[in-house]
C-alpha cells in the first residue's frame, strides 16, 4: 500500500524499516493530536511521504529523527487547517524550583515518604485520574519534555534535538518534572489512601 508505482527507494530504506518506527511516531502524534484516527492518518501520511522521498534520506540524522521531522510537518498542517494556535513554550531556568524540595544544605525539605503498594494503584481507575491531573499540572515545557521521554519513548538526545534544549537544561527539566510528579502523587494519592481508604480528591 505504501508502494506507489514508480516510487523507488534505495535498498537500505525498506518498508519494514519504516514500519518499525510506527509505534513511536504514533505515540508522538497521539500526544499532539489527542485523537487516534487523526494520529493514525498523520503517521500514515508520514510513512508515505518518507517512502516517496526516500532518496532524500541521507542517513546523517538517523531515520527516526528524519521521520519525526516529517511527522511534525504533518501535524503542523493539521493545526493550520483546523486554525488552532500553537503555543510557544518558554521556560525560565533562572527560576530554581528545586529550592522547594531541598533546604540550603542539600537535604530534603519534607521529601519522599514510603508509598504503600504502588503496584496496586496501577490497577485502580481513580489513580489514573490523579496521575493525569499531576501530569497536567507540570508547566508546559516541562510536561512536553517529560512526555516526549516517558510517553513517546524518545531517547534523551532525541528529546534535546526535538525541543532545542541543551543537555544541561534537559537534565534540569526532567529532574524537576520527576520531583514534582512524585510529590503530587504522594499528596494526592499515596497519603490520601493512608488517611482515608477509598476516598480521593480529583
Amino acid at each position, binding site marked *: 500500500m505504501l508502494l506507489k508505482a514508480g516510487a523507488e527507494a534505495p535498498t537500505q530504506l525498506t518498508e519494514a524499516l519504516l514500519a518499525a518506527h510506527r509505534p513511536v511516531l504514533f505515540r508522538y502524534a497521539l500526544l499532539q493530536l489527542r485523537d487516534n484516527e487523526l494520529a493514525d492518518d498523520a503517521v500514515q501520511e508520514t510513512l508515505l511521504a518518507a517512502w516517496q522521498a526516500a532518496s532524500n534520506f541521507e542517513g546523517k540524522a538517523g531515520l527516526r529523527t528524519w521521520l519525526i521531522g516529517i511527522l511534525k510537518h504533518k501535524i503542523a498542517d493539521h493545526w493550520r487547517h483546523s486554525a488552532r494556535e500553537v503555543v510557544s513554550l518558554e521556560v525560565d531556568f533562572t527560576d530554581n524550583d*528545586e529550592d522547594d524540595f531541598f533546604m540550603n544544605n*542539600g537535604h530534603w525539605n519534607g521529601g519522599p515518604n514510603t508509598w504503600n503498594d504502588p503496584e496496586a494503584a496501577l490497577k485502580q481507575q481513580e489513580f489514573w485520574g490523579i496521575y493525569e491531573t499531576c501530569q497536567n499540572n507540570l508547566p508546559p515545557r516541562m510536561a512536553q519534555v517529560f512526555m516526549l521521554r516517558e*510517553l513517546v519513548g524518545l531517547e534523551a538526545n532525541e528529546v534535546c534535538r526535538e525541543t532545542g534544549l541543551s543537555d544541561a537544561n534537559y*537534565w534540569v527539566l526532567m529532574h524537576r518534572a520527576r520531583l514534582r*510528579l512524585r510529590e503530587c502523587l504522594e499528596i494526592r494519592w499515596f497519603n490520601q489512601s493512608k488517611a482515608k481508604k477509598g476516598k480521593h480528591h480529583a
Partner: protein
Amino acid sequence: MRSCREITALVSQGLDKKLSLGEHLAISLHVLLCSRCRNFQSQTQFIRKAAQRYTEHMQNRSSKKP
C-alpha cells in the same frame, strides 16, 4: 559525601543515560543510609512505569471515541 539534592539529580540522570561507576557507587552508598533518597529512587522508577501504562490507557481511550 554528596547531598540528597545531588544524589537525586544523579538518580534522575540514571534513568536517561548510563552513569559512571563512581556515580553508581555514590548512589548505592547514599541510599543505603538515606530512606528518602531510597524512596525517590523507587518512586521515579514507578513513575516511569506509570507513564508507560498511561500511554496505553490514552490509546485505548481515544480508540473508544465515537
